């Protein structure tokens, strides 16, 4: 994907305002109290390899060591388990028990399962989650599927931010028994047209094969309601280059840890020369704005 081309035709994206910090989130002395949000961390185990750190407290300790004040956690178990209700409950419990005021659980809903709508309700009402993390490629539904449209609408009604894990693992190295292509995001713009206040965050959308054509991604950028994490953004000075091409691009910090080494995302902040406002947007304010917008619900 040509990243410059990706954003060339995108309209100027809305400036994001600093929103109030989430209650209970920890602040870090290591960063002088500045908010630092990691939008993509994981609990649970990936089926084809052992992931480190192996425990939730160890993950939290690692994040805090690097100044992360808030991390949005999904559960790897929810990718393939059919009992997603249990996976979400375990995620919520682990974040509450071992999250150290840092972890925010993002539950999963699989709209191909019977009575999936109740899972949206449970995530919002019982677990008090702020967002969902979806796996369309592993759970085999397209973003043009009416069930996804309904899910996006329900999540928005429930004031949940929707994350879509476009990919988790480079398809070149997947175990053949678990081979899936990245989610095709071509249908997402149409879905956003139908749910005009929905906010979506794409995770790993820059991974190897990419999430779609430049035209598709430009169209998504023009909605001003789609953000991308940088975990899989590559190229020397990649963040800086992308922001040069599109100064208002909605990039958020995501590490994909512990599947990826946390330091790989962290060092990207040093490899690119960023203006203070760009750095703040990447480290927290874009993510905070996405969450705050979602929390306003469908009638904002």
């Amino acid at each position, binding site marked *: 994907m040509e990243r410059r081309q990706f954003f060339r035709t995108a309209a100027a994206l809305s400036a994001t305002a600093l929103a109030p910090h989430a209650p209970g989130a920890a602040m870090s002395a290591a960063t002088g109290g500045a908010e630092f949000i990691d939008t993509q961390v994981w609990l649970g185990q990936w089926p084809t390899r052992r992931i480190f750190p192996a425990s939730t407290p160890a993950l939290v300790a690692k994040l805090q*060591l690097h100044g992360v004040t808030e991390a949005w956690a999904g559960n790897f178990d929810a990718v393939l388990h059919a009992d997603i209700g249990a996976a979400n409950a375990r995620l919520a419990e682990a974040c509450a028990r071992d999250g150290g005021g840092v972890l925010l659980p993002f539950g999963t809903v699989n709209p191909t399962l019977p009575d999936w709508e109740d899972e949206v309700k449970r995530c919002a009402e019982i677990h008090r989650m702020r967002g969902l993390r979806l796996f369309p490629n592993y759970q085999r539904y397209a973003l043009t599927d009416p069930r996804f449209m309904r899910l996006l609408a329900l999540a928005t009604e429930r004031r949940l931010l929707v994350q879509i894990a476009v990919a988790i693992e480079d398809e070149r190295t997947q175990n053949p028994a678990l081979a899936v292509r990245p989610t095709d995001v071509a249908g997402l713009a149409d879905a956003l047209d139908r749910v005009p206040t929905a906010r979506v965050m794409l995770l790993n959308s820059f991974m*190897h094969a990419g999430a779609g054509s430049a035209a598709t991604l430009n169209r998504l950028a023009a909605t001003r309601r789609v953000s991308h994490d940088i975990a899989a953004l590559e*190229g020397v*000075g990649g963040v800086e280059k992308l922001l040069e091409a599109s100064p208002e691009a909605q990039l958020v910090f995501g590490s994909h840890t512990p599947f*990826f080494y946390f330091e790989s995302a962290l060092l990207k902040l040093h*490899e690119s020369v960023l203006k203070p406002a760009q750095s703040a947007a990447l480290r927290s304010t874009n993510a905070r704005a996405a969450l705050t917008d979602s929390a306003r619900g469908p009638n904002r």
Partner: protein
Amino acid sequence: MNRRKFLHAGALATLAPATTRAASTAPSGPTSPPWTDARLRRLGAWDAHCHVSTPGATPAARMERLVAIADRVGVERLCVFMSPPWQNDPTPEQFRRSNDDVLAILKEWSARAFGFVYLNPNYPRESLDELNRCVADGPMIGIKLWVACRCNRPALDPIVARAAELDAVIFQHTWLKQRGTGNLPGESTPMELAELATRHPSAPLICGHAGGDRELGLRAIRPHSRVYADLGGGDPVSGEVELAVRELGAARVLYGSDAGGRSFASQLGRVLGADISDADKNLILRDNLRGLLRPALRRKGIEV
């Protein structure tokens, strides 16, 4: 190569060790935060795998841009090869042109860059001539082989033999895409590199990308003590550096980035974030590559 420039940079490197040893209290090894810009700049890493694909009017200008970014994260020396545009099966004219770009870079950047000559074994005579032009009679110190032909073919034997005479290291791209079913026709697997290593057991070979699918690639090269694993390229998947150290020993593992397509940061991060000792990180980030290149550099009167 401009020896004065080279030695100047070497002196700077001596003053700035790759990592800072632990102080008496808090850990301060390579993995310990906070990562400040100033601390990263002192890292002193040697990168085994770079392409000068950054924008610029001339090869040297492109290199200037790449070095500016490398400086931010402490990449001190860069092995450079294969100037764009990429050609899977380049004609002799095309690989000579690519090498001319690297020669132009070395004229300006010999203090920071090591050149590897790009060859195509499908043109054995022309490849040997180019090897002589750029390494025997020029400033380059290694060979880059990409995806023109599988590296287990006999066509590589005269190139490996001549490389040994010149103390030139061979960097062979390898990948296992979808367990090898997705490879390009001429794209080598790490198993094929192992075959080459069996025929040339004393030749130092670098297994580019550690085979791509590292869990398989590292096993394939494990028995061959002169085959080194380049960590460059591919996503920074947790555990793979630990795996490489466990299976090969840290002395056979090299930091490489595959810049500019890949980020220095993401690739350095996998080494800095790995659960291995500081001593092993120093080997991987610099000392192994320095030792590997030393014979070729000595032939050119350069001590590192």
